[in-house]
């Protein structure tokens, strides 16, 4: 298998972008990544595009070819494939691009992730997101997507004594990080009290425990590592890639509080990179809800099961902690245009490893991990990156 490196990154601002269309967003992120990598259209062997539900959000399927077209590549006839795994669609697109280079088939691919969620109303967006859960046996009975994560939180509080304050601290931390990210949807800190007092969405989760509805796109240029230096002085190598699946419904899982898909995907990625959780310097994890980040740091092996809340109390995961988590602001503050999220996580790791993260730059970060989840844990994809 060949080694693969990130040689270019591109991001749009995340947020409620009323004046930008689906097409404009992905074209903007893609062209930024291509310019960053200093490649040309004719260098690109393939496109992989992650999008959860363009069909429901903007009534447009068949977006692989569409993205090639709006990026100006219709005359180059580049193979273009859309990849879907709910909120993990972006991470899966990264992995498909990675595998296609590792296999020796492609030398350079462009990966994109995009979601335009605000062209539908809030309640319709919520309904579309619920399609990531089991429609017949969860959503049919009135379970919402926040409700499913809320049930993880209730059980976590019951089994491990995790508190609403600890959940809220995740949001406070991620907003503090988002304040240093010019691409973030929310760039202002929030207080613990405002999170705890926010209106309840699904007990025990309040509005500020939830990631927002966002528009945005992200893009990467991946290249065979042996050729990467031709394009950039600072290629960032993907040293581990893992993916796993589990039951769509939360109630079908071995343990309500453990995302086994995370556990298995992490095992695969750590094994490939020949690393243990202790070797990870910083991480972007899937905090679609605050409980999601607590489960993530446990299931990735950073802390023992049940100690996630304590780790938040002990400030381990803050920007100046021993393991900064969600330096970008995470899904919570940076925003969560679902298909873009998994790609944007790799953009953040790359910026950090290049030393380009500005005020949110971590100190001595050599190895970063990205953790992207689909649904309530039915899909998980993990990548580990290191500066070359």
């Amino acid at each position, binding site marked *: 298998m060949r080694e693969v490196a990130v040689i270019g990154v591109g991001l749009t601002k995340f947020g409620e972008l009323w004046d930008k269309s689906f097409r404009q967003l992905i074209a903007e992120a893609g062209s930024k990544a291509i310019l960053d990598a200093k490649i040309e259209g004719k260098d690109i062997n393939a496109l992989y595009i992650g999008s959860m539900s363009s069909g429901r959000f903007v009534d447009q399927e068949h977006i692989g070819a569409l993205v090639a077209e709006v990026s100006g590549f219709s005359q180059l006839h580049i193979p273009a494939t859309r990849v879907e795994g709910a909120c993990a669609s972006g991470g899966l697109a990264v992995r498909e691009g990675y595998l296609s280079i590792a296999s020796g088939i492609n030398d350079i691919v462009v990966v994109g992730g995009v979601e335009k969620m605000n062209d539908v109303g809030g309640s319709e967006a919520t309904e579309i997101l619920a399609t990531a859960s089991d429609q017949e046996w969860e959503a049919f*009975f*009135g379970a919402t997507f926040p409700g499913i994560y*809320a049930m993880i939180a209730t059980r976590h509080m019951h089994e491990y004594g995790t508190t609403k304050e600890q959940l809220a601290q995740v949001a406070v931390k991620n907003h503090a990080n988002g304040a240093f990210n010019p691409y973030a949807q929310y760039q202002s800190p929030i207080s613990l009290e405002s999170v705890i007092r926010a209106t309840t969405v699904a007990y025990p989760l309040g509005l500020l425990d939830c990631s927002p509805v966002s528009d945005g796109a992200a893009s990467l240029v991946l290249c065979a590592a042996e050729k990467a230096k031709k394009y950039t002085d600072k290629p960032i190598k993907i040293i581990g890639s893992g993916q796993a699946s589990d039951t769509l419904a939360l109630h079908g899982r071995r343990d309500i509080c453990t995302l086994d898909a995370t556990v298995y995907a992490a095992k695969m990625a750590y094994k490939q990179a020949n690393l243990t959780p202790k070797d990870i310097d910083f991480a972007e994890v899937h905090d679609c809800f605050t409980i999601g980040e607590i489960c993530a740091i446990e299931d990735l092996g950073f802390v023992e099961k049940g100690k996630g809340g304590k780790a938040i109390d002990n400030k381990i995961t803050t920007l100046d902690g021993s393991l900064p988590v969600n330096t970008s602001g995470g899904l919570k503050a940076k925003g969560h245009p679902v298909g873009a999220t998994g790609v944007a996580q790799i953009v953040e790791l790359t910026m950090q490893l290049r030393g380009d993260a500005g005020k949110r730059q971590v100190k001595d970060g050599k190895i970063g991990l990205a953790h992207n989840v689909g649904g309530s844990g039915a899909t998980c994809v993990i990548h580990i990156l290191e500066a070359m």
Partner: protein
Amino acid sequence: MKEGVARFWREIPQRYNFMGNKCGTCERVFFPPRESCPYCRRKSIGNMKEIKLTGKGEVVTYTIIHVGPDDFEEQTPYPIAIIKLEEGPQITAQIVDCPLDEVKIGMKVESTFRKIQQDGHTGAIYYGYKFHKCYNNK
């Protein structure tokens, strides 16, 4: 939802009558019924037996939904729980006839046949199971 009604009547044996199935090899029970047993896989094919579940179980976890989907909006706030049925499978369902602050992990519950949602004012009504506290505390 505005769905074809076949999608709903197809699930009637499960949603009305709690029909699950059991692996003839390892005896594990599944609800909704599975085509094959995820533990025995090929050994279970053609060896899955239909069984009716009692609809009794215990709350494993729950939430109170305050912001519901449009079809459920008039019911908010309402509790949704994961229930471990006495035969083994876990399912997601609404808890009814119970003050919100009395819903607890470990609570013994049993199923009741209720209206779940309806397709607008003129569309089909969908029925299925919800759960209430066990009255005789068994």
